[in-house]
């Protein structure tokens, strides 16, 4: 299993979630976050924005589905401009459903 953490534009969130649902991955957790990338924020005229709002979408999927999910997320959230976000993948060793106590996804 892998945990996928995608930092995407907040305005693209709905589109991404619907696409994921259409592809068969309805389960996710979303967290509003603030951060910046290697551009050190955003300069609009005289105003400098150090931290920009993003939406963090967190989901755990089977190893074989990782590429598919990445494709769906990046396909929907790509605009081609700076600030589209990042996707991070990390290993998950076990996952438990609390309702049953079983160690299955």
């Amino acid at each position, binding site marked *: 299993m892998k945990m996928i953490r995608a930092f995407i534009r907040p305005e693209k969130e709905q589109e991404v979630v619907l*696409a994921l*649902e259409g592809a068969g991955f*309805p389960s996710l*957790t979303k*967290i509003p976050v603030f951060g910046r990338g290697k551009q050190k924020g955003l300069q609009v005229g005289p105003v400098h924005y150090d931290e920009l709002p993003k939406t963090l979408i967190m989901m755990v999927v089977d190893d074989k589905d990782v590429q598919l999910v990445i494709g769906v997320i990046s396909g929907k959230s790509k605009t081609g401009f700076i600030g589209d976000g990042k996707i991070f993948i990390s290993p998950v060793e076990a*996952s438990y459903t609390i309702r049953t106590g079983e160690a299955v996804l």
Partner: protein
Amino acid sequence: MKEITAIIRRDKLPETKKALEDLGYPSLTIQSVEGRGKQRGAMCAEMDEEMPESFCTAVKLKPTPSTYALEHTLPKVALYVPKRLLSMIAPDEAVENIVQGIIRVNKTGKRGDGKIFVSPIESAIRIRTGEEDEKAVS
């Protein structure tokens, strides 16, 4: 070391904190999150029945409760359920204990009890002293 990420019901938080304290692992980070599981939100069951067969969206997706809710401006509450996300770093041998403790307290037998994920952590540093790895989390 392992990271234990648990997504639980909001009203179970005090009990969970108490249980973890009793087990001897009181340190944790709590976040307010929104999310959903296989059931695609709280009102899914009712909405599935209402959804007409012919319903098809412009985005060329399979009709789902969310797309339907979007089209009909049903309350957003149907799409995501507010939860609490607990994250804690623990030594390997404590993981089983903590996981079973969380399950024992949070289990109601109904949908929406939440999930627990266990993932490996390579290194940890305590900022105050500079201690590394196992020492930093004990």
